[in-house]
């Protein structure tokens, strides 16, 4: 009798459990089905290639952008950037005055030297004081110093962030007590990405939702152990590889290798990964505006990879010619690193300027179109 009662109770408990398990499994199945429809995009590229800027742009374009609180959260970053910039310039001027024979160019005037030392000291701290009008004045005075301007012109040897000009120009505005950063300010802000950040969005086409959902991942760009975790991104719809093409004359922080050579190696490495055999590759040749300015002044052949470049003309035509050359080099590299059976994967090159929102929007529209057509093609509908 007892055992019968027991078994009956067991029976009930069991069926409850079974029901629960079934429900959970059902949910898991539904969610994984939903997951399948989400197209995953992975942003890759070496450090400072503009990945995070693209990330922010997508956020601004297709999500609700940044709300007030988020915007305000960037203030410390922007201020930090300013201190870092001025520190780099001041320290840089000291370094250059030692290594250049014509060192008087880099000698900061005596009055400014004191300011320089003080700001440099601030810049090396981990936490920065809010920009006060006094500090702003000091920064501006130091900025005007000839030596600093000279140092700026040699910025390819130092790591002067691109935002330098922009922020210094807007110093007054940035130091206001009630300052709330604008979208542009946020786009210029430089902070090293650590870990992985992701956003989910749906590309909006001319005021109506188009139904596709994308999830964009931004992984940090440092030279860490990528090979250990890159395979977790297998099955990603597309890799968006950002390469800053203006860096052909810049050398890396960590060692003395050329930035662009580093990018080249990384690109090669990514292409050869077995997990990306079927993944589409979108190559963003980024920082095109800086490239435009630089290519007429600094010849491409300073970079080893481009040493066989022959300038053909001048002005706008030359810029286009140089750009085509770089594009071809990347294309060559792609096909060299692709085995014949992978040759069918989508590979497209886009020229971008991550800070220009309109351009990013246009570019992304094209990327979206390509991925859609690819899907239709694979479904046999094209």
């Amino acid at each position, binding site marked *: 009798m007892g055992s019968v009662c027991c078994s009956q109770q067991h029976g009930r408990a069991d069926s409850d459990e079974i029901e629960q398990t079934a429900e959970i499994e059902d949910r898991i199945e539904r969610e994984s089905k939903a997951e399948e429809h989400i197209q995953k995009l992975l942003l890759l590229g070496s450090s400072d290639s503009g990945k995070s800027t693209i990330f922010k742009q997508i956020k601004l374009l297709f999500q609700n952008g940044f709300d007030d609180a988020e915007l305000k959260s960037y203030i410390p970053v922007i201020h930090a950037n300013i201190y870092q910039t001025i520190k780099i310039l001041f320290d840089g001027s000291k370094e250059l005055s030692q290594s250049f024979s014509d060192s008087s160019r880099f000698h900061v005037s005596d009055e400014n030297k004191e300011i320089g030392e003080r700001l440099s000291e601030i810049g090396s701290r981990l936490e920065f004081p809010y920009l006060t009008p006094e500090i702003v004045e000091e920064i501006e005075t130091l900025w005007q110093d000839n030596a600093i301007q000279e140092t700026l012109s040699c910025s390819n040897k130092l790591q002067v962030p691109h935002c330098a000009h922009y922020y210094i120009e807007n110093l007054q505005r940035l130091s206001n007590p009630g300052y709330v950063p604008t979208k542009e300010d946020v786009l210029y802000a430089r902070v090293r990405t650590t870990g992985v950040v992701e956003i989910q969005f749906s590309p909006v086409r*001319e005021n109506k939702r188009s139904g596709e959902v994308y999830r964009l991942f931004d992984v940090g760009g440092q030279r860490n152990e990528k090979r250990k975790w890159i395979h977790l991104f297998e099955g990603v719809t597309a890799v968006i590889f950002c390469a800053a093409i203006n860096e052909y004359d810049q050398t890396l922080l960590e060692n003395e290798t050329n930035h662009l050579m580093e990018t080249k190696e990384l690109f090669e490495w990514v292409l050869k990964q077995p997990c990306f055999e079927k993944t589409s590759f979108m190559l963003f040749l980024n920082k095109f505006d800086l490239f435009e300015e630089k290519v007429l002044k600094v010849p491409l052949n300073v970079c080893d990879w481009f040493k066989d470049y022959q300038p053909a003309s001048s002005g706008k035509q030359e810029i286009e010619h140089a750009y085509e050359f770089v594009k*071809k080099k990347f294309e060559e590299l792609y*096909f060299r690193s692709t085995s*014949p059976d992978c040759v069918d994967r989508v590979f497209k090159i886009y020229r971008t300027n991550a800070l220009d929102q309109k351009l990013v929007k246009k*570019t992304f529209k*094209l990327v979206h179109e390509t991925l859609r057509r690819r899907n239709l093609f694979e479904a046999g509908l094209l």
Partner: protein
Amino acid sequence: MPMLQPSKKNGFLGGGDGRVLDLDTAVKDGVLGGVGAGGLGTGVVEKLDLNKMIEELNLSEVPSVFICPISLEPMTDPVTLCTGQTYEKSNILKWLGMGHYTCPTTMQELWDDMLTPNKTLYQLICTWFSQQYVQMKKRSEDAQGRTSELLTILKKVKGQARIQTLKELHQLVDNHSTARTAVVDEGGVTVLTSLLGPFTSYAVGSEVIAILVNLTLCSDSKANLMQPSKVSSVIDVLNEGSIDAKLNCVRLIEILMDDKGFRAESLSSHSLLVALMRLIRDKRHPNGHLPGLALLKSVSIHNELQSLILNIGAAPQLVELIPFLNPECIELTLFTLDALSSTSQGKQALKDCPKTIPTMVKLLMRISEICTGHALSILLSVCKLAPEECSLVAVEAGLAAKLLLVIQSGCRQILKQQAAELLKLCSLNYSDTMFISKCKLTRTIQ
């Protein structure tokens, strides 16, 4: 264009209420069931030369009563036999001249060889064609006007409106030669070319290319289109497009290559060749194989582009494709492979592909003399690279017998010389008896 429904009445000139219609009205209302006899009949019918009109109009749907039963063409000089059947005069004369004394359609024997000119029918034919001609002219002028309008619109609109305009322009250009000339004359080519660039969407790009292939492009326009960013757009559509879009791209590239100022480096793009190979290997759309191979052949002539073709591994792919192609395609493929085999990289690639030699051996004396020539040339290049290894494979595949065939055939002298050379090369590794047995022949060879 508003089209009148062809009348459902059965070909009576007069209709149900007994009125006698004049010729123009009858034809105008489509009583004869003609093609879209529109509402024009002003009564002014130009007496144009009938032959010229028929040729220019080139209509596919001419009323059956106007067609000669012998030639199935519209009649320009209808004559009636004693049986009552009407034929084109020249045709029936030929028939009778051949000695036949029967009516071709009824097979009756003729009791009278008189040919009565059928003036009534002639009048009807003339009037009907004139009407059609006048309508066509009007449509063409309309097309021209509309084309100008569209070009002006195109300079201003963006987005969906742009795509719609392009689609309509495409339709016009497809159907009317006046539209085509209008586009070229009014600077439309420059406008269209300016739409191609790094940010061209697929929809815009494919329509622009579809329009451009219909036009006669001057040398300047072609040079303009050869700018790198525009070539990239074309290559993109070639990579991603529908089969029709791809065929248009191939056609356009051919047009661009057909210019004195063409420089091969403008096409030195791996993506282009990958796209071409994809087109060539697409089993779902066999109509793309021939154009793709033709373009590949044109590309392979240029030395600078040969290494690119080899870089993407095209050589083994082409070899493996040959058994599935029709003769015309095989000839193009062989030409390409022959051109590639002139480089050391090409020779190596062909040698590395295990199917090269057996395939080439099979093709000897199989399809045409040209194919045999190419196959021989390829075999020579490959075998010269590694004589021992390759001749082994070749002989196993039955090369010797084929070569003897070539030598004994009516082929050009140079082919026979090549065959002899190859035979000598292969036989070097064998003793005479072994070689003969390999040939599976009973005759001795020199």
